[in-house]
């Protein structure tokens, strides 16, 4: 092997990498918040909502969970403009990530809701609370607490999945790597460096979620 590794050329571009890293974190965080909101709302509709709401939710969950994220992204970014819905790459990336995470979050939160004993709901109803109040005040908190670890690992999978949006040119870490690669032709060095950055990021997310779990879940009754 007579190849000379030149990681120096990669480090000259560290502002670009840092910028990409920040974009990845921002994109992931936004998608997590929006996806979780869809997850809670969808899980409510799936477990408590009217049947007319249940089957579209089931269809959405199964459709998303059984097709690749890349295809969902291409449908949203390339396909939807055909019917007049146009996004720029960054918006399309956020929409696709949110739609994707939402489906997984519904499944996870639903499992949490089903784990809350029936007696809790009955107690709430016996106190004269509206079913929606029972859901918001009694059921959802223990449900989320029960599935917090599953949600956290789904969030990390989502963060890793953001690399795929580089395919449509949305701004994030892998796209930054691609642009450096196109200029320097140091493909291995740049992708290896970015691989390490993602590994560090996923470890950081795991630590952050564990800490947040201890802080929030321990205090909320």
């Amino acid at each position, binding site marked *: 092997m007579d190849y000379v590794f030149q990681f120096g050329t990669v480090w000259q571009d560290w502002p670009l990498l840092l910028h990409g890293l920040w974009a990845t974190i921002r994109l992931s965080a936004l998608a997590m918040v929006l996806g979780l909101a869809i997850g809670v709302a969808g899980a409510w509709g799936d477990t408590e909502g009217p049947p007319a709401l249940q089957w579209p939710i089931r269809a959405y969950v199964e459709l998303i969970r059984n097709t690749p994220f890349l295809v969902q992204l291409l*449908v949203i970014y390339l396909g939807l403009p055909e019917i007049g819905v146009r996004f720029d790459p960054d918006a399309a990336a956020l929409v696709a990530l949110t739609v994707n995470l939402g489906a997984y979050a519904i499944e996870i939160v639903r499992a949490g809701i089903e784990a809350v004993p029936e007696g809790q709901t009955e107690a709430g109803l016996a106190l004269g609370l509206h079913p929606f109040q029972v859901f918001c005040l009694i059921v959802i908190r223990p449900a989320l607490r029960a599935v917090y670890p599953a949600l956290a690992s789904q969030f990390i999978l989502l963060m890793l999945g953001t690399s795929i949006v580089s395919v449509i040119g949305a701004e994030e870490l892998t796209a930054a790597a691609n642009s450096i690669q196109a200029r320097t032709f140091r493909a291995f060095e740049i992708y290896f460096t970015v691989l390490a950055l993602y590994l560090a990021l996923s470890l950081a997310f795991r630590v952050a979620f564990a800490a947040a779990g201890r802080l929030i879940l321990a205090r909320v009754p």
Partner: protein
Amino acid sequence: MIRGFSLGDVWLLILAARWTVLLSAVAFLGGGVVGLVVAVLRTAPVRPLRWAMSGYVQLFQGTPLLLQLFVVFFGANLLGFTVDPWSAAALGLTLYTSAFLGETWRGSIEAVPVTQWEAGRSLALSYGQQLRLIILPQACRIALPPTTGFLVQVVKSTSLTSVIGFVELTRTGQLVNNATYRPLLVFGVVGGIYFVLCWPLSLTSQFLERRLDLRRPRRRRRGHR
């Protein structure tokens, strides 16, 4: 030149799905073999082996598959192998699959009660015999539903190999779209084909999970007969 989207294009996409299925099968079989080694070493009574395998799993579960494919593709070229997209895709997906299956199967091995190991030892079986004759057959049953579920993940993951230029279902979709410019229709059909491949696997996984739950031996009442 733009031409219309015809039934011939649908047929082209269905044919391209063969490559998706083939790549999934290769990745699953290769990943299964390596994953079994990972799972066994991960539960072995030798600490450095467990650490090494834990690092291996962390590396592949903590980084995006897309980047793993890039590193395999460009890295192998540096090492002097001329890799075509097919080999890079097969190798990258095999490594990725092995890490996930290894972790799943480790959980299944650890789910077998430790008394089963002890029973084997008290019969003077060697470590290998305990593993092969007592633990793995029971672990297999526990592992079956999540393994089938992960197969869905493998099929979906193969779509990423389109980015390094392997012409499978998604890449063919992009090519057909370039010729016809009917993206909603083309990627709708592509998504539909993936769904037809994955949905039965998901249902099977759910079915196996329920059956395993039902067949789980009930705790026998004490003092009964």
